[in-house]
Structures are given as C-alpha cells and as structure tokens.
C-alpha cells in the first residue's frame, strides 16, 4: 500500500457539488419564506427565485444522473456492510479517544460505508421526495380538477416541507462532519481542486501512472 495524491472529484462533480450548494441555499431560504417561517423577502420574488432555482436544480440533476450512470460513478453509492461496524464504532467511541478513522479511502470508492449509505438515502429517498412533491406543487393546476385535490395538495405541501427539513438536517450533519479529522480545509480542499490522498495498491498505482497520468500527482 502506498499513499498518493489522486484526483477523486472530476471537474463535473465539483461543478455539480457547488452549483447544488448555491441552489439549495437559495431554495431553502426562499422556500422557508414561502412557508411563512420568515418574511425577509417579497412573496412574489420568493416565488420567482424558488421556482427558477428549482428548474435549474432539476436540470442539473438530469445531467448528474446521466453522469453517474455513464461514468459508473453510481458504484460509489452501492451499499455495503463491509467495514460498516468499524465506522459506526469509530463515530460512537473511537473518535472520542483520538483513534484514527478506520476507513481508508480508495480511488474507486471515495465514501466510507456509513457515508455512502447516507448519500444513497439522500439520493433515492429525500431528493426524489422533494422534486416529486415540488413538481406536483408546481403543476397543481393540472390535477386540481381531480377529486380530493384539496386533500392531496395538503399532503404534497407537508411532504415537501418535510423533505426540505431532511435536506437541511443532512447539510448540518455534512458541515459538522467537516470538523472531524485533521482540519476543515483538509475536507474542503478536494472539492475545490479535486485531489485527495488515497491508498493505492501497487497495481492501482501502476495503472494510474501508466493510463491516467493526469489523475495522479508525482510521488513526493
């Protein structure tokens, strides 16, 4: 095993991440305005920003889903129990004793088992919940003549808000976890320049040196 600096976030993924950050912040702020939690914006302006951000985010997701599927990146999120117990034990006990994180990042698997499960839940449960209810909300006029629409719009609205709080909770957790480990910058930097230190087997190292030299920085 050798540690090398390898590009683990390609440009699209970084763009996808930061664009999502901007849009989700905008939508949370304007969404909470629309929901009545604060009044620091004119209502019609909030409608405009919330809706256009939503349309952009959905467009971004279309590209992101395509990217995940065509590049095989979706494999990062396949749940696994391999090492899960160790990670859970680390966050519940070891972290308090100053132990090292048990998970060793590899270039084809950038998340630890707990992390990938959390992302999977976000991507297959919470995100679809918010955009399905969001689209239903946006297109209410089309299904409003249906029987019971007055009841269902309440369900849609409540689920939409529930999902929004779910995403917000995720973000809070996401930010908190950046305080674990060596430094916050250590966690953020890879999302800017794409590179992180990962463990490579000699075969992996040889492959990257040989076939993807752009992804691996020269050994120090």
């Amino acid at each position, binding site marked *: 095993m050798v540690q090398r600096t390898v590009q683990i976030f390609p440009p699209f993924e970084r763009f996808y991440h930061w664009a999502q950050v901007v849009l989700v912040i905008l939508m949370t702020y304007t969404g909470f305005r*629309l*929901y*009545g*939690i604060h*009044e620091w914006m*004119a*209502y*019609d302006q909030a*409608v*405009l920003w919330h*809706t*256009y951000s939503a349309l952009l985010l959905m467009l971004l997701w279309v590209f992101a889903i395509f990217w995940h599927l065509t590049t095989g990146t979706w494999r990062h999120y396949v749940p696994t129990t391999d090492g899960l117990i160790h990670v859970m034990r680390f*966050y519940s006990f070891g*972290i*308090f*004793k*100053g132990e090292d994180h048990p998970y060793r990042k590899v270039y084809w698997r950038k998340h630890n088992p707990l992390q990938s499960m959390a992302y999977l839940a976000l991507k297959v449960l919470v995100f679809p919940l918010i955009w399905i209810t969001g689209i239903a909300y946006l297109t*209410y*006029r089309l299904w*409003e*003549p249906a*029987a019971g629409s*007055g009841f269902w*719009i*309440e369900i849609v*609205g*409540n*689920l*939409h*808000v*529930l*999902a*929004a*709080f*779910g995403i*917000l*909770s995720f973000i*809070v*957790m996401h930010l*908190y976890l950046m*305080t*674990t480990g060596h430094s916050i910058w250590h966690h953020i930097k890879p999302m800017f320049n794409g590179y992180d230190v990962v463990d490579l087997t000699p075969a992996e190292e040889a492959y990257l040196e040989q076939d993807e030299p752009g992804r691996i920085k020269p050994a120090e």
Partner: protein
Amino acid sequence: MMSVKSLIGIGFALAVSGAGAALAQEAATPVSAGTGTTVDHSKLEILQKDFATGPEVTAACLTCHNQASDQVKQSIHWDWDYEHPETGQDLGKNNVINSYCVGVAANEPRCTSCHVGYGWTDMNEPPPQAANAVDCLVCHDKSDTYFKIPAGAGKPFGKEVKEGAVTNTGKPAKPVDLTLAAQSVGLPDRDNCGNCHFYGGGGDNVKHGDLSSVLHNPDESIDVHMAEEGLNFTCSTCHVSNEHQWHGSRYNVTAKDTEGAPPPGQRHDVSTCESCHDTEPHDSLTLIGFKLNSHRDKIACQTCHIPTYAKGGVPTKTVWDWSTAGRMSDAGKPYKEAKYESASGKKKPTYVTQKGDFEWGEDLEPEYYWFDGQIQYANTDKEVVPGEIMLVNTISGSQDDDTARVWPFKVMRGKQPYDTERNRLLYPHLFGPGSETAYWGKWDWDTSFEAGAAAAGTEYSGSYDFVSTEMFWPITHMVAPAKDAVNCEECHKKDGRLANIAGIHIPGANPMGPGGKLGALILALTLAGILFHGLARLFGRNSRKES
C-alpha cells in the same frame, strides 16, 4: 423689403381663409357629435311642447319607440320580481327582506320612488298597466335635471318645488323642466343608474358599499374602468343590455365564467370580468402571470382586484341595530346623533329615533367566502333560532364545487325584528305620513308589524323581539388599478385575508403544519446529536491532553 401695406394685406388674407376653414369645419360637424346617436331629440317636433307630467313625455317617446314600454315591462326593473331559476325562490324587491329598511311592502311610496314607472302605490298589485306608466326619463335623461320625489311613488318633481325639498341623492331639489329633459335623452350614463343604485338603503352607499356617489365622477384609484380621465365606462358598458334586459344579477351570479371573451359578433350577454379579460387574464409566459392565472380557478378576480371598498370618502353602513329605535330626546321628540365623520369630512348619523343605532365604515377590507353565485333569502320561509345569528340571506359554494370561487363580500350586521311565536322575520310598516300604523310617527311596533304583515301577506302573532342578523353583499365594483391589487403576502401568511376559507391550500398560511413540525423535530434532533457528539469529542480531547 416688404411694405407695411402688403404685410397687412397678407395678414388679412390669412385671417379670412382661416375663418373660412373654421366655418367649413363647423358646418361638417353635427351637434350630436360624440353622443353616439343618429337622432338629435331636441329637433323632434313631438318634443317641442310643454309637458305637464311624466306619462305625457312617455307617450311622446312611444310614438317612435313603440316597443320600448313592453320591453321595460319584461324586466326586473319593472316588476321587482324575480323567480330564481335554480332555487325557485321568489325574489326581487317585491319579495325580499333585507337588513336595512327590511322590506318594501307597506312602505311603497317611499320605496317605489326609485321604480322605473309612475304611481306604483301598492305592492300587492302589479305595477300600473298603462303603457305610458313607464318612466323613460329616469334612465335616459342626459340633462342631469330629472329627479323623482323621494316619497312620490315614482313621480318626478314639478315646476315648483317645496322649500327644503331634497332628492333621494340628498341634494336640494330643483324644479324639473320635462321638455328640457325629454329633448336631452340618450343612452344611460353613470348618473342615470347611479341616482338610484348609488343611494340604495336610504342614502349614499348605505347598502352596497361598492356603489356610491363617488362613482358619478371617479378617478382611476377608485374605479379603473369608470375613471373619467381613463376608460370612462358607464354602467351599461359591462351590464350590457338588449331590448331593455340587463345582464348582471345579484341573485343569480356567474361566480365563475369559463367561457371568456367572445369572438366578434358572438356572446354579448354577460357582465363578468372574463367576458372582456378572457379566462387567462395574466401573462401566461411569465411565471407570476402563470401562477396568477392558476389562482383564477378558485379565486374570483374581484378578490384580488378590489382590495378595499367604500372608497373615496363615502362610507357604507356596516351595522344597523333596529332594537334601539324609538328613543326620544329629553324634550320627548325624535332625535338624531351624527358621531361618525367620513374621510371627506361628512357627518353620518349614528343614532336616529326612527331607525336605531348605526355604524359606518370606509376603505373596508371585504370578508371572503366560497360563492357559487346562488343567494337564498330567508324572507319569512326560514326559522329564526333565538340567540343565534339569523342569516338574512345565505350564499353557497365550496372547494369541490366547480362553479364556485372565493369572493369578496360586504357583510351587513345588525338586529332586526322577528315574531317570537312564529320565529319568522317581520315586515314593519315604517313610512306613511299621517298613517295610523306607520312606526315613523306612531312609534308603536305592534301596529307597525300588523300592518306590515297584512301588506306582505304574512302573519304577526302579537309578540316580537330583535334578533342579530347578517346579510351578504357580493363586492364587484370599485375595481382598483392593477398596481393596487392585493399583494401575495396579504393571503400567503398566517391569519391572512383568506384565513377563514376552508378547502384550499395556501402556502405560507400555516407555518409549521404537520410536515413542518416533523421536519423541525428531525432538524432539532440532528442539532442535539451534533451538540452531544461535539461536546464528547471536546471532552475526550481535553482528557487525552491531561493524560
């Protein structure tokens, strides 16, 4: 260099040719220009005489307009009788009980002074039969000089007017020159309709709230359609008529028009907003326009576009409590108090011995209800439940009713008499100078109710009390300019304008509903977990440092 003489010559020539051009112009422009008519009535031979009475004028009108009288007699303006096509209820002024002066029966000469005819003195009889009993002038006089005597059963003022007489508009009465009025006739303008409809309920804006003297000459902030400096609509621009039948009914309202604006040559029979603005009135290509258009399915145009009514300094009556009527001054005389001062500085009565206590309001926010256009009247059909609010009329509609939308209303509140044995509303006999039974003069409710019941064809048991009542008046006039329409946040907030409306989802109206509460709980648990975890990490690090 031109001589002075030749300069004068040129000037003279120019002046002459200019005058000639002006003369030519005058000759080419008929006097009736701008009146939209092909007849100058002042030139008609039959109108060149000294008319003594209204019916004489009508007889002259009918020599040319030989169908007009029959047409008017087919209208609700004539018989004050309306059988509701949906509910079968007998409505019209002839039948209904309201929460103002209650009912017409027994009080004819006062009430029928606003009838489009002459001499309807008994509501148990149909209006007078003669063809020339129809009053053409009240709707068609364009000289603004024709006024009816307030208690004259439709008769206009004569050549001589009693000292201190006033018209029903509250202005000093002037002698009426029937010849002048007859020669001035044309299509009705705002004054013709307004001289009765703006003063319903016994005074300026008393009844409707959205129809007041301000609409004689409104500006755009009062009514964007009727503004003199703007579109300058008359009433009949929207209340289109055909053969003296008008569209736009308060008993049977088109609460939701799904047909929209007609192509040329078709459908000219409705007075809905959509009949001009069509069913998608906002710009669908903008997001906000698209959103507003989708509001239209459940929210009436009026709900956003009439943010307030009783505008322009003319208040409307909001409470009328009959139960306090009859108090006398220390001198034992009927008296008046006027403690309300309108924005325009006019004093309004707050107590009158004849009528009881009043409250007034102006620039009022309407109240909102589901409305399918159908109004039922309690009249004497509906039972009064003592101690409960009696609804003098009821409006219907709900979210799942495709013909209903949320409409703005003036809700008139008050107390009015009912029969405590029969539990029905009562018709009082109020007006009738010299009468033995009129309350205004005799001050005896029992005889008043007896006479009222007899005139209305109902009964009176002999015991009465006053019950709290509410009455609903749809608000549809005084449409504000678009910039003044109700803002989104006036409804999209907690306890907003539509807080009482059931069955619609208003984002922002219920912050922290079930979804929000559960979500906030998840967020709170996340934060608590982080706090706990973070503290444990800190504690662990410190204890490691110490060791």
